[in-house]
């Protein structure tokens, strides 16, 4: 039995502590944002924030979370009241199949919590652990740049300034 702080609320779960956090989020807590993509830490579809840092929830045993706070895409906003980063993604229509996007949003949130003024290369390097197969990269980057500007910063040295 363990307590988890997810999106600001404490949830009690009774699972094998070795269970990766991803399955607990999806199957025990009904939070379907984080997705199973590979289970190997190679694609980022499972990305969530743990104490502001993006992590692969497929490789983080739930017993290791402890008192740290977990933030999933559901914790950043809702369909009727999306958060600013989600609004930026919606503004840019930054999705095709959309499967990778919750992981992208979580990873972008982690970047922006660290800095709202990354260089273009730093932003790309920060997002690199997350894969997109549909080729939505340009829009995802535009959304991150937009969100950085919304938070009072801005991405430096980009070939696509926010319009």
């Amino acid at each position, binding site marked *: 039995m363990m307590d988890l702080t997810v999106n600001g609320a404490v949830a009690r779960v009774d699972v094998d502590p070795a269970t990766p956090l991803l399955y607990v989020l999806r199957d025990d807590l009904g939070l379907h944002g984080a997705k199973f993509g590979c289970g190997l830490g190679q694609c980022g579809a499972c990305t969530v924030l743990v104490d502001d840092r993006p992590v692969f929830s497929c490789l983080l045993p739930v017993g290791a979370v402890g008192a740290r706070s977990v933030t999933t895409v559901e914790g950043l*906003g809702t369909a009727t009241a999306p958060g600013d980063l989600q609004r930026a993604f919606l503004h840019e229509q930054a999705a095709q199949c959309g*499967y990778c996007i919750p992981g992208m949003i979580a990873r972008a949130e982690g970047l922006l919590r660290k800095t709202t003024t990354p260089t273009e290369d730093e932003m790309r390097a920060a997002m690199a652990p997350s894969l997109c197969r549909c080729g939505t990269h*340009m829009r995802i980057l535009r959304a991150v740049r937009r969100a950085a500007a919304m938070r009072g910063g801005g991405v430096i040295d980009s070939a696509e300034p926010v319009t």
Partner: protein
Amino acid sequence: MSAHASRRDVLGGLIVAFSLAPAALAQTGGGEGSGGPPTVAPDLPGTLAKFPDLDAWIRIAPDGRVTVFTGKVELGTGVKTAMAQLAADELDVALDRIDLITADTALTPNEGVTAGSQTLEQSGTAIANAAANVRLLLAETAAKQWGVAATTLFTRDGAVLDGQGRRASYADLAASTSLAVRARADVPRKPPDARRLIGRSVPRVDLPAKLTGLASYVQDMCLPGMVHARVLRGPGSGTRLAPDLAALRRQPGVGSVVQVGQFAAIVGPREWPLEQALRVANRGRWEREAALPALPALPDGLLGMRRESKVIDTRRDEPGAQGVRQLTARYDRPYLMHGAIGPSCAVALFDEGRLTVWTHSQGVEPLRQAIAELLAMPAERIRCVHREGAGCYGHNGADDVAGDVALIARGMPGVPVRLQWSREQEHGWEPLGPAMLAQLDAALDASGRIVDWRHQVWSNTHSTRPVAAGDLLAGGEMVPAFAPTPPKPIPQPNGGGDRNAIPLYRFPNQTVVSHFLPDMPVRVSALRGLGAHLNIFALESFMDELAAAAGRDPVAFRLAHLDDPRAAAVIRRAADRFGWAKYRAGPNCGRGFAFARYKNHGAYCAVALDVERIPDEGRLIVHRAVAAVDSGEAVNPDGIRNQVEGGIVQSLSWTAFEGAGHEGARRTDYDWSTYPILRFADAPRTVSVEVVDRPGKPFLGTGECAQGPTAAALANALAAATGKRSRSMPLGRHGPKLDE
């Protein structure tokens, strides 16, 4: 759309009865867009020709909500939104009053497979015209009730008005309007100036849910009492696992083991213990399948394979034309993965003798037939419902996993089962896009004009989409095994390996030959674009080589050989926006251009790239990508841009980096580290897409139009940047040779 499907039909109490044409089996063999039932009303546009009754497409509920049915599916291309726009505009209802139901064998017209970029052409056209018909019928009902001529009435926001105060809502009128009537071919669509939504970049209706984590995919489905399953297979196509099932039964978390013939799966209440058990199972011995043909040494090995050759196009308008300069070149590409980010998944429930399968298959109707045969069940007792998966880009593991879960569910009546493949299984078992080789030969006359052209292409089939049990992996694991459907070429004008092998250019003399290779040492099927990726790579690379031989600018050279004004317009627009005329190459930089009309009857797309090849690293930077696209009437311009941007980036990944590895006939790629795809650092610095809107013109398939031109534009740009031309994909494999 809620993923929590109830076991009753989704319309609640509304009784649905359809006048579907008699269930003819889907076309057999290589019909990539296996078209479904036959045409019964050839005068009607789109799929109305096969399902001419309006209530197959549109229903109006007592509360005025409009349900629109489509036999196509949302794969991430945004067609759900586009079709809702079409219906909403033609009907004059608000977008949020529309509920779009996508492919469901119990509810929607059988539109075959969602493939080949035909959704708006077939289904969108049908829906737009059906909606126009319905709006007219409702107006006629009101006209009768009010004793006026229908032409004096107009519609707005879900109601018919006479302009003098009388108003009747669709909800009221629907009660006395039968939609079980045949559509009329002559009902006009809304003129362009009356459209509110069509032609506007309406935001996608499905994104708010997806971006905020609401259950949206088949992977997210959670039914009461649902159990989880994992299938046991060898590491990849061509192998067979011999699992120790008794030991697996004893693994914690394994509730039961399913075995049917050589098909085996483990089932349990939670996923993680099953993953652990799957790992234990994979320690088991596996062996190679016996009778696989040897893999040819690519690419030239394709030439030695058994083939069925066919001249698919020939012209001899100037038999006396004198060529003074001959060129020949060969181009090739390796096997490519679909590589969906989310491994294939399906959910099934067998209850009271009826089976429901929730699947992200692109073709629920043929899948239903295949499962019926696999389970020896009547198809009428099987319902396949589409739920979105991750982007599939063609025939990946979606159908196989549906077959797998159907087998498991059938043995557990009353219990919903969710089966998901592992990443390794997806990499190991999904059908690959075929390796291909094209040989181009051409002759230039003294004025630098192409006077003779020959294009030959060698390829396996580009469709083994299931139509029968033997086309599903599970079918091959039954004892005795079901035999796979023999592969057949997909005929022109769509084509398979020969898709886009016929040039759109006007050459006085040409021959196009398709060499169909029926033997498949590697499991292959449709990958987005089918043969167009390699054929346009070849054709448009060759055009550049010919332009150079003729001493002409590549863009001007193309324009000189075209007589299609829309093609010319798209080429000029892209070149102009790119700044082609005033481009000055920096060190190690180069520009490249390419154009194609997808299938020669889909969307027109021209792509220009500015790339840099960094010496010593072999790294490729795409500084700029500029494209122009003509999709006919643009229902959702931003949706078009999204598809073309995505197609450009996806094709850059395929063309520059990818190639599936084999050792003998066994795959060596089992995850993203062994089959790397483009990551953010390699994405272009900027991409811009111009949409050339043609209101009133037919919709043209767009989802696959950018892959071919991007591949060739990249080859052309790299040739300009490095002074050396590469004709073999992948173009940018890491680890440059010593002299770079």
